[in-house]
């Protein structure tokens, strides 16, 4: 059901509309923004920071560089907005609401914090994924795309550490958690009797040439698939988020990442 349709219209010169409702609009127009909500929308704001106005029902559409759905807000000239996410003021608190925008004949999901989701490296945001060792060298670590995700494996028998990394650091300022899904696996029997293990590491920006741990969570789970979430609510600024693997034995262990998502 659609019960709101505010903003836009030829008289205002705006090139978009904001609508609310729990059902996908049946007559969309280019750049129509659909906010999935059952609370009446009273107004909307586009801003990078939380609005000072706190009124029941208003929508705050956060604009940010990580958006993947840029649009021109005006019919003439250009004011380009990059919506990232939507929140609605309900009972005095900002509540997350899912949103889509209609572009080029289809509804497009807004970026939802994904840094990797099977098959998609979100290169606009991450710069793409690659593998490295503890010395930041890429020589002995390979990343390959497999059906279920990204697979990192060590290419030399005397290497023990493999790390997946994005080419760009990620701004964690507006995010509270990171969730990793994947697993660590050692391909042959351990001669030492010790299992390979892994962490979801958060490092200070590694472009400076060092690995400084800021936070970490254990993703080992005895070699079985796991979903682990780490709290990053007190990290502001840019960090590298890196699935990390350590193998005690040179027996070609590998690590698979199925997804990595900010929220």
């Amino acid at each position, binding site marked *: 059901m659609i019960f709101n349709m505010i903003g836009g219209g030829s008289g205002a010169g705006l090139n978009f509309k904001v609508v609310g409702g729990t059902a996908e609009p049946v007559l969309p127009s280019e750049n129509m923004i659909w906010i999935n909500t059952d609370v009446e929308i009273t107004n909307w704001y586009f801003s990078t920071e939380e609005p000072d106005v706190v009124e029941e029902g208003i929508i705050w559409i956060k604009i940010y560089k990580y958006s993947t759905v840029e649009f021109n807000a005006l019919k003439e000239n250009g004011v380009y907005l990059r919506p990232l996410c939507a929140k609605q003021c309900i009972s005095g608190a900002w509540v997350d609401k899912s949103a889509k925008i209609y572009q080029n004949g289809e509804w497009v999901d807004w970026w939802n914090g994904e840094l990797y989701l099977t098959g998609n490296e979100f290169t606009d945001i991450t710069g793409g994924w690659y593998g490295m060792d503890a010395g930041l060298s890429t020589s002995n670590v390979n990343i390959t795309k497999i059906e279920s995700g990204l697979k990192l494996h060590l290419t030399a028998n005397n290497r023990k550490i493999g790390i997946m990394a994005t080419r760009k650091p990620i701004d964690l300022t507006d995010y509270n958690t990171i969730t990793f899904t994947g697993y660590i696996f050692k391909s042959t029997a351990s001669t030492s009797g010790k299992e390979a293990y892994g962490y979801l590491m958060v490092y200070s920006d590694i472009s400076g040439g060092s690995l400084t741990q*800021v936070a*970490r969570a*254990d993703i080992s789970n005895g070699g079985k698939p796991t979903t682990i979430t780490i709290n990053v609510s007190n990290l*502001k600024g840019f960090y590298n988020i890196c699935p990390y693997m350590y193998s005690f034995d040179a027996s070609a262990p590998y690590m698979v990442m199925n997804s990595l998502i900010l929220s």
Partner: protein
Amino acid sequence: MKTVYLDSNFKCHTSDDGTMMAIETDFFDDKCDAFIEGYRFVPNGESWEREDGRIFYGEMISPWKDYAQLDSAQRDYERQLLDEYTESLKIMGVIL
């Protein structure tokens, strides 16, 4: 490896008040007390519930204070150490 002490909310302390759980970890190697005490350490097998109801399972290590403050404290500590080492070398007659 360092021994740190965890209170009931899994916040790290550098001394035990008699009620805390001791754990050993390499995460805080070379870190000053102010840095360590800005962290939360949820051990394997434990879980911690954040104010918004989200539950996190161990092992998880992450700051509960603004990391920028912790980083600043650590840098001050390292600068102080460097000053002390430099002074010691001077006393020994080492020309830098």
